[in-house]
C-alpha cells in the first residue's frame, strides 16, 4: 500500500508551484502596469484590474466546484486528492490576486464585502489545513488503540461498577456517585465546544472534584466500608481519565469539522456577494 501523501505534498508540490507562479505573475503584472493617467492610480477598473478580477472570479467558481467533484464518484477528471491539493494552494493564491485586483482600495460597500468574505473563506480554509495537519495524530494518540464506542462502553461498565460498589456505602456516597455520572456526561460533552482552552473552553472538571470529595468523605468511614471506598475511588479515577479522553476525542472532531461550518456557508455568501459585485460594476458601468 502506498504511503500516505499529504495533499500539501501531492505530486511533489505541483500545485504549490503553480500557485506560486500565478502569484508571481500577478505581482509582476501589477508592478509593470501603469494605469492611463485618466485613471490616476490602479484600481479594479483598469484593464489589468478586469483581467485579475476575471481570473479571481473564475477561480472562486472552480474552487467551489470541489464540493461537486468530491461527490462525483464515477468522475475521472483528476483525483479528489489532486483537486483538494489544487484547491488549497490556488485558494491561498486568491489573497494575492484579489488584493491586486482591488489595488488596495477598500470602503464600506458590496465590493469590499465580497473581498472580506473571500478572506474569511480563505482564512478558515487555512485553519482547516492546519487542523488536518495537527489533529489526526493527536486523535490516534488519544484513542491509543480504542475506538470512541469502546471507550464509551468501558465508561458504562465503570459507571455500573461504581454504582454497585457504592451500594455498600452510606447514602451520601451513592448520591455523589449518581451526580458524578451526570458530571461525566457533561465533561465529555464540553469537548464539543470550540471555545479555546485558554479562554475557559475546558470548564471545571466536576467529575474529578467528585472523585476528590470521595477521598475526603472516606476518612469518616470504618471497617469494611473503608476498603469499599478505596476501590470506589480507584474505579472513579479510571472513569475520570477515560472521560478526559472522550472529551478530547470530541474536541478534536469538533476542530476538524467546525471550521467547515464557517468555510462552506461563507463561500456561498461569497458567491452571492461576488455575483452582486460583478453585476453592479457593469449595471452602473
Amino acid at each position, binding site marked *: 500500500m502506498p504511503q500516505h501523501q499529504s495533499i500539501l505534498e501531492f505530486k511533489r508540490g505541483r500545485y504549490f508551484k503553480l500557485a506560486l507562479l500565478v502569484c508571481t505573475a500577478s505581482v509582476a503584472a501589477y508592478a509593470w502596469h501603469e494605469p*492611463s*493617467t*485618466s*485613471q*490616476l492610480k490602479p*484600481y*479594479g477598473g483598469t484593464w489589468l484590474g478586469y483581467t485579475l478580477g476575471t481570473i479571481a472570479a473564475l477561480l472562486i467558481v472552480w474552487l467551489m466546484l470541489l464540493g461537486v467533484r468530491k461527490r462525483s464518484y464515477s468522475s475521472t477528471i483528476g483525483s479528489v486528492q489532486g483537486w483538494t491539493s489544487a484547491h488549497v494552494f490556488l485558494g491561498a493564491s486568491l489573497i494575492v490576486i484579489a488584493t491586486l485586483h482591488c489595488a488596495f*482600495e477598500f*470602503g*464600506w*460597500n*458590496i*465590493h469590499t*464585502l465580497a473581498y472580506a468574505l473571500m478572506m474569511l473563506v480563505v482564512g478558515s480554509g487555512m485553519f482547516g489545513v492546519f487542523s488536518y495537519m495537527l489533529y489526526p495524530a493527536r486523535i490516534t494518540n488519544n484513542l491509543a488503540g480504542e475506538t*470512541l*464506542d469502546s*471507550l*464509551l*462502553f*468501558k*465508561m*458504562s*461498565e465503570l*459507571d455500573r461498577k461504581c*454504582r*454497585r460498589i*457504592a*451500594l*455498600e456505602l*452510606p*447514602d451520601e456516597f*451513592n*448520591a455523589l*456517585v*449518581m451526580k458524578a*455520572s*451526570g458530571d461525566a*456526561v457533561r465533561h*465529555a*460533552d464540553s469537548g464539543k465546544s470550540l471555545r479555546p482552552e485558554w479562554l475557559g473552553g475546558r470548564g471545571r472538571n466536576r467529575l474529578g472534584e467528585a472523585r476528590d470529595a470521595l477521598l475526603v468523605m472516606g476518612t469518616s468511614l470504618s471497617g469494611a466500608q473503608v476498603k469499599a471506598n478505596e476501590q470506589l475511588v480507584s474505579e472513579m479515577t479510571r*472513569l475520570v481519565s477515560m472521560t478526559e479522553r*472522550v472529551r478530547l476525542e470530541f474536541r478534536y472532531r469538533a476542530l476538524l469539522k467546525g471550521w*467547515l*461550518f464557517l468555510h*462552506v*456557508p461563507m*463561500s*456561498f*455568501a461569497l*458567491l*452571492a*456577494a461576488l*455575483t*452582486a459585485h460583478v*453585476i*453592479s*460594476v457593469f*449595471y*452602473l*458601468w
Partner: protein
Amino acid sequence: MLRVGRALECELQLPDPRVAREHALITFNAQGALMAASGGPLKINGQSASQVVLSVGDRIDIGPYRIDVEAAPAGLPLALAVTLDAPLQPPCGERIRSAESRGPRHSRRRLSYIALLGLLLLCLLVPVAPDLLSQARQASPAALAVAAAATVNSSVSVPTAAAAAAASAITAYPHIDTVSLEEATLRGAAGNLLQAWNPGPLSQGHQIFASDCGACHQTPFVQVRDEACKTCHKDTLDHVPISHLTGPAGHEFADTRCAECHRDHKGTHLVVRSQEQCADCHRDVKQVAAQATSDNVVDFHSGHPAFRISLSDAATPNVVRRVRQATPMPADMVERSRLKFNHQVHLDPNGVRDPDGKRNPAGMQDAQGQRTVLDCQSCHVPADGGRLMAPVKMEQHCQSCHSLAFEPSVTSRQVVHGEDAQIATMLREFYARLVLGDVPEGVHPPADLPRLRPGAVLTSEDRSRALAIADRKAKQVLHELFDTRQVCSTCHEVSRTGEYSWSVASVKMSSSWMPQAQFSHAAHDSEPCAKCHDVARSKDSKDVAMPAIETCRECHVGAQPVAGKVTSDCATCHGYHGAVKAAAKGLVAGAASAQSAARVAHAHQSFKESP
C-alpha cells in the same frame, strides 16, 4: 428473617441507591410473613405504613421497586415478585452514545442556502427591483400605447414623460399617485441598499446628486454617455469642433466619451492629467485635423515649439497677429500701441521726479522726499485671478505725476483726459466763469484776463464780448497744452487737424499676450517680475517683454519627473475644452473672446487647484 435492602448481606438485595442499606425486615410468625420498615419508608398498597402482614395480592413499594406478593408454591412460606419500576438513568457512556447517534444539530447545507439567498436578496435583487418594476411598467400595454401615441403625434421628438422615461431606465419615476405604499417602501429600501454599490466617494460638484445613481448611469450595462454629462454641462465646448476632425484618427477622437478622461468615484478630483492622451494626437496633429495650425508637440521638456505671442496694432485693433519667439527676434515682434512709454526712465533706481513732492500711490519716496522710486507694482496689478495684469489707467497710475494742469499759476485744476472738444469746452466754461467775475476758491485769475467789475450790469453786447474773451483765452490755453507745452504728446501721437483742433491716435495695449495659456501670477509670486519681463532697459513701448520658453524651462520640465524641477504636463498650461474654437475666434475678434476662452479654461482650472 429476611433482610430487605441494598447491602450485599441482605437476603433480598435490592441493588439501587434509592433503597436504604437495610430497608425492611420480613419476619415469619404464626400469622405468616410480617414486613416491617427498618431503614426507609414503605408504601403498602399505595399507603405509607410501617409494617404489614403480607397476604397474596399485596403490593409494597420500596424505593423504585415494586414487590407483589404472590401465592406461594407448596412447601414455601412466601413468594414475592420484585420489579424495578423506575430504573436509574443509564450509565454515562450510554448517554453519551445515544446523544452521538442523534447526529449534528446544525446543517451546513441549510446555513449555505440562507447565506446565498439572503445576500443575493440584499445585495442584488432589492437594489435593482425599482428598475425592474419601472421596466415592467413601461413594457405594460398601457405604457407602450402612450409611448407609441407620443411618437406618432410628434415628428420632432418632444420629450414626453413616457419617452423620457424610456430613455432613462434607471431614473424613470412613475407619478406619485401611482406608487403604492409597498412600492414606495421597496424604493426606499432599494435606494439605501443601492448606496452599498458605490465604490468610492464622488467629486465635490457631483455630491449634490450622490443618492441618484441614475443621474449619470442612465442605462444598465452601458457606460456613462455624454448625454448624461451634458444635462448640466451644456455649454462645455469640444476641444476641436467635430467638423474640423478628419481621417480615421479624427473620427476616433470624435467618439471619445467625456468619461474617458473624467473618472468619478475617486474623491474630489475629477479633472485628469492626461499627457499621453494629448500626445496621441498632437505628435502628428495633421492626421487628426488636416487644417490644424499648431506645431506637433509631445512633451514640454523637449520638442515643444517656441511660444507665440498674440500682438495687435492700434491701427488695426481687430487683427491679432501671433508671432513666434525666435533668436534673432523677428521683425514683427513689436507692439504698435501708439502710446509712448519708456520703462527705463520710470524704473530708474534713483527714482523719478514727482512734481509736487507728493507720495506716489506706491508710497515710495527717497530720503530727500523729492524723488519717487517706482517698481512694477506701482502700475501693474494682477487681475482675472492672477492670469493677467489689469490694464494701466492714466487717471490711476500716471496722472499723479503727469499732471494735465492747464494753467498751474492760476489753478491746480487739470483738464479731463479726453477728446480735444471736451477739453475745449471745459476751458471755455472755466474762463467764462472767471471773465464773468465768479472766481472759485483757490483760483488766482491771470493778470491778462479782463474781468467784469463786481456789480457791473451786463448788456447783451457785454455778454458776447465776455464769452469771446473767454473763448480766446481757452484757445490760447489749448494751443499751450497741445503745441507749446506738448502735454498730450508726452505719451500720445497727436496730429493737428485744424487751427484749434487736434486728433490723438487711439491707443490699444495688449493685456493678454498668450490668451490660450493658463497661467497664474499668484503661483509665481516668489519670483521677481524682472525674471520673466525684462523691461529695465526698454525705452520704447513697442518692446515686447514676454518670457521665452527657455525661461519657463528653468523650473518646469515635462511629464517625466526630474529632481529639482516642477513636473508639468500639457494640462498645466493648456486648456482643453474649447481651446481650438477660442483660438479661431481670437484670430478675428481679439482679446474679448480670448478672454472668454480663458474663462472657460480658468473655470476648469479651479478643479485642479482645489485640494
